[in-house]
């Protein structure tokens, strides 16, 4: 096992890894809601594939979080037996799917974030996070290719599709602020070389989003302050419903396996 976390404050690293893992898990669960409901079979497959990758990322990260914590909790315990306030994902991930366009907008925003974050995290001083990032970033490229491709088609499509994705961009944009809002935990991880500086991730994300939005003929909304702290466990009302569905079986039949 990598001993790299011995140098880092373990409770802090635990919380940081949860932020990454919960973002992937909650988004994966959200995307899974599309299965059987997508506009076309190809989109059903596409969204389900991305959901699977997200859950795969979450498994690696939550398993690691459990090891860092050192209390004997595995990925299932952490995913299925934590409450609302213990989830540390940014609230953007838990926002409802809305129409297909809104799902695509949320996906572009998070794909671009994960791409820029993971690319830099491949150089992490934490070997395990570096390995997970290196694996995940390859998949995230495909996710962004898919989501940005759709955003361009919808934005530069009909008046109706343009209107709807612009409305989704406007509605979801404020939630992106939280992704880059550096707090003491983000700072501590960056200081120790575990994670990249969020300011660097933001600069690259901005550049990428500007390109995609321009091609999609969409307008970038003005910056607004935010009041969300999902990264500290303060969530929108939506997360509770997601967890209720996701955790039902393990809560009703503790320890069930098949």
């Amino acid at each position, binding site marked *: 096992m990598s001993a790299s976390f011995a140098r880092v404050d373990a409770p802090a690293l635990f919380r940081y890894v949860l932020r990454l893992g919960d973002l992937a898990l909650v988004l994966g669960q959200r995307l899974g809601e599309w299965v059987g409901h997508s506009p076309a079979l190809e989109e059903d497959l596409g969204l389900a*594939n991305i959901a*699977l990758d997200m859950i795969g990322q979450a498994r690696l990260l939550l398993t690691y979080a459990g090891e860092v914590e050192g209390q004997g909790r*595995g990925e299932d315990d952490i995913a299925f037996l934590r409450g609302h306030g213990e989830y540390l994902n940014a609230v953007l991930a838990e926002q409802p799917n809305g129409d297909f366009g809104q799902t695509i907008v949320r996906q572009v925003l998070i794909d671009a974030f994960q791409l820029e974050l993971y690319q830099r995290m491949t150089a992490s001083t934490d070997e395990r996070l570096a390995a997970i990032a290196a694996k995940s970033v*390859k998949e995230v*490229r495909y996710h962004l290719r898919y989501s940005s491709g759709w955003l361009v088609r919808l934005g530069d499509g009909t008046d109706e599709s343009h209107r709807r994705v612009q409305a989704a961009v406007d509605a979801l944009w404020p939630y992106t602020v939280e992704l880059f809002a550096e707090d003491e935990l983000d700072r501590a991880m960056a200081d120790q070389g575990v994670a990249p500086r969020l300011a660097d991730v933001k600069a690259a994300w901005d550049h990428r989003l500007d390109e995609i939005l321009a091609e999609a003929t969409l307008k970038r909304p003005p910056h607004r302050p935010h009041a969300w702290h999902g990264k500290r466990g303060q969530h929108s009302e939506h997360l509770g419903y997601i967890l209720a569905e996701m955790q039902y079986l393990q809560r009703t039949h503790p320890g069930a396996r098949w």
Partner: protein
Amino acid sequence: MSAVFTGGVPTPAPAPAPTSAPNFTPADPRVTTAWQALAAVEDPEIPAVSVIDLGLIRFIKPRHDGTLEVGLSPTYVGCPATEVIRRSVEIALRGAGVGEFVVTNVLSPAWSSDWITAEGRRKLEIYGIVPPEQSASLRELMRVNRPVGCPRCRSTDTECISEFGSTPCKALHRCRACLEPFEYFKCI
């Protein structure tokens, strides 16, 4: 959910895929036996191709305590076939009588479709799946849609129907010449 990390990050494997057994240790006959046994383990989603053809077996080596260690990489982190492949590998190793062994999940360096062997690429093609291009850069992945030749009629007049096909590793394409759909093994 029961992916087990039995080891941390292993020493980096050589970048290009080996065409036969890598890290071959002639001194230990178990290593040879294990490689032979795993040559018969197929990917459940692509039965034509073995786990060795796909470059998923990263190393087989005896550990200091005498246990045989087999390094196995997932193609995609969320691929449901990963669990099946791991079990098939374990069953094959048990059947081959290699004694005590452990299958280690190897994430780094991340598996690449470049590591599919020449034999694997040939088998994929015969099976009707277009093998991946080699070493696409990020820019190419993001922007360029190179023509993918139809595995049936060889026409390059084809289109991508979906970036995500029946399994995480494949995209769905269609040939405009013979009108047949076909799968493309994604470059990753």
